[in-house]
């Protein structure tokens, strides 16, 4: 899919051509662009490089929120409580704080004005906006639940992405913003685990995260570099998409020097263990991950542990089976009582001597909602100790 919203070149590509008047307009535009094309050619665009000269929208907004939008939202009482002058939240019409207001995401609509320069934020403003969101909203203690923090930051980051796309931002500026955005979404996928669906939908977070990741990898591939964080993100991408042949093949095709960096090597080893159906090795290797990497792996923990219980149910299946619970707990990276709880969720019997009685006929999928990942992801949370969210997302831990 072409990320840039370019107008279709020829009408033959659209199955329904517009009627009469508009078409004339479009033909006239094509004429115009043809003459522009001639200008480019005369300026020396040679060979295949006869690029259509599209006008890239200019940006001129110097603030996190364009002045016009701030005025509008203020008068319509549509400011977020993170954006108002502190102390005015309870007013009938709170005042917008220009140092805290951030441009919101708005769905691109047909017929809407092509972006005015005063509405488009400059690249350095975009980075400043992202840093503000991380430092002051994500990373600051707040009386509000983190789900609200997430919603606000999710939306405002989406608007930053929009501004980036419209002005065709690429290169180092783009990468700096994308890297922080990816870290935020990966952290969120762990932090909000277990929240009710109506407040946080992991699939929506996933969809956006995949887009950001894919764009980031494109930047690494086509940009001049150097990109010192690339190894970190290639590893995160692989861990997050564990089991995906496409993601694994992508990493295998990276240059050797990248593949041999410690993060990527570890991620590949974990990926190999996953594809080989070796959960013991996988969970053992996972001990070596840092906090954010563990967040990326987090959503696959359920699958890994399920696979462990499944193959052990088959492999140890016998009437006299007495497998020590403690050992199983260690293998699953869980405390013994939690390991017992996990067994019970899958129908695996634990007797009163704390021994697991594996049986291939007993293993069953847990009842809907019975298995709460949140209870069992201590392996991730213990790595968070002592870390500030701010530094995790900026990447300076």
């Amino acid at each position, binding site marked *: 899919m072409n990320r840039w919203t370019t107008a279709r070149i020829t009408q*033959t590509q659209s199955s329904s051509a517009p009627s009469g008047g508009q078409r004339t307009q479009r033909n006239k535009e094509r*004429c115009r662009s043809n003459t522009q094309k001639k200008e480019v050619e005369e300026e020396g665009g040679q060979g295949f490089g006869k690029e259509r000269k599209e006008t890239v929208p200019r940006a001129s907004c110097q603030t996190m929120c364009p002045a016009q939008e701030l005025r509008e939202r203020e008068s319509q009482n549509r400011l977020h409580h993170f954006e108002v002058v502190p102390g005015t939240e309870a007013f009938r019409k709170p005042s917008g704080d220009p140092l805290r207001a951030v441009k919101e995401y708005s769905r691109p609509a047909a017929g809407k004005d092509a972006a005015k320069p005063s509405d488009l934020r400059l690249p350095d403003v975009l980075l400043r906006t992202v840093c503000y969101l991380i430092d002051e909203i994500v990373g600051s203690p707040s009386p509000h639940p983190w789900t609200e923090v997430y919603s606000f930051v999710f939306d405002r980051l989406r608007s930053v992405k929009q501004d980036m796309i419209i002005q065709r931002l690429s290169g180092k500026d783009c990468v700096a913003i994308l890297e922080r955005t990816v870290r935020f979404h990966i952290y969120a996928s762990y932090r909000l685990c277990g929240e009710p669906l109506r407040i946080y939908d992991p699939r929506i977070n996933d969809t956006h995260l995949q887009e950001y990741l894919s764009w980031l990898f494109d930047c690494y591939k086509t940009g001049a570099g150097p990109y010192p964080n690339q190894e970190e993100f290639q590893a995160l991408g692989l861990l997050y998409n564990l089991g995906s042949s496409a993601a694994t093949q992508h990493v295998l095709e990276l240059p050797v020097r990248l593949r041999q960096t410690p993060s990527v090597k570890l991620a590949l080893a974990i990926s190999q263990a996953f594809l080989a159906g070796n959960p013991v090795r996988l969970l053992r290797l996972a001990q070596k991950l840092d906090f954010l990497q563990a967040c990326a792996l987090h959503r696959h923990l359920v699958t890994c542990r399920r696979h462990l219980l499944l193959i052990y149910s088959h492999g140890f299946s*016998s009437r006299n089976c007495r497998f020590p619970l403690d050992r199983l707990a260690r293998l699953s990276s869980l405390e013994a009582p939690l390991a017992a709880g996990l067994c019970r969720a899958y129908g695996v019997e634990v007797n009163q001597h704390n021994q697991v009685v594996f049986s291939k006929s007993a293993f069953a999928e847990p009842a809907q909602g019975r298995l709460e990942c949140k209870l069992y992801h201590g392996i991730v949370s213990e790595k968070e100790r002592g870390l500030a969210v701010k530094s995790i997302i900026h990447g300076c831990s």
Partner: protein
Amino acid sequence: MAHITINQYLQQINEAIENHEGSFCAELLSFKHPHVANPRLQLASPEEKCQQILEPPYDEMVAAHLRAFQSHKEENWALHIMFAVTLDLRIFANNAEQQLQKKGKGQPGEMLEKAAEQLMSCFRVCASDNRAGVDDSKKWGMMFLSNQLFKIYFKINKLHLCKPLIRAIDSSNLKNDYSPAQKVTYKYYVGRKAMFDSDFKTAEELLSYAFDHCHRSCQKNKRMILIYLLPVKMLLGHMPTHLLLRKYDLTQFADVTKAVSEGNLLLLNEALSKHETFFIRCGIFLILEKLKIITYRNLFKKVYLLLKTHQLPLDAFLVALRMMQVEDVDIDEVQCLLANLIYMGHIKGYISHQHQKLVVSKQNPFPPLSSVS
């Protein structure tokens, strides 16, 4: 272009003429252009309409054109033109990609995706041809176009887009009647897709067909098919002969084959590492990694054959693995490996933790690979 009205079409020509847009006008008068598929341009007497909108001599010219391609509506001899043009399109898109890459411009895959969009519209025109009889149907173009599209989708790594094409052809009654060459290419790509989806039995059928029916003079193509057929067959327990590998210059597989059949994990790791670049480029590295499970199975079977008992101490397997220089493996992992093999059906038996032994069935504890999975 496939649904504009006759008035719109004529207006477009008129404007193109007025604005001196020669190439656009030429497209509108070309047989290769999709507008020829538009049923709304099929008029019995186009002259009157043309005279209303166009100036002479263009009115006569366009009327003649309209009459001419009308006669194609239930014919398909233009398919060959389409084949040539779409093939060229794909090749140009490839070249365009390479050039853009060299300059570091554009998104990777952009040119090929655009080409694919065009090909897809042609495919839809062919697939929806329900009017003509079998001999004249445009459906005969479907397999060629699918093959072109497969080539693009594999290149830009968007294999999921192959699915609708496969479904369309599978449900077509012509699927066995296309030319042998087209069928071989088709089954090659669908076989590769099945491999990607881990459906190895299906992959083996398709790729075997492709290999057997590929003309013996096309050594290069046969070799390409073999690159994908070999790993699949090995996973199902059928090892290639050295003769075959030498004949098709695929000796990279020789060490892999030897390692797997002997249960030699050390040699397997070395072979995979040595030819890593080749295997990764062909996209079979991940599948060959799956052979590790088969290799473990073969190694453990050797242990069983050596000890000649059906109660095997776990330590024996640990020793065997350490001999193969498998790194940092302990009893826990041995248990896990064995449990996985039992779960997959490669070993019939169970592990006794108390006695630290693998107890195998007295009958056929290591079923033949072809009967498993």
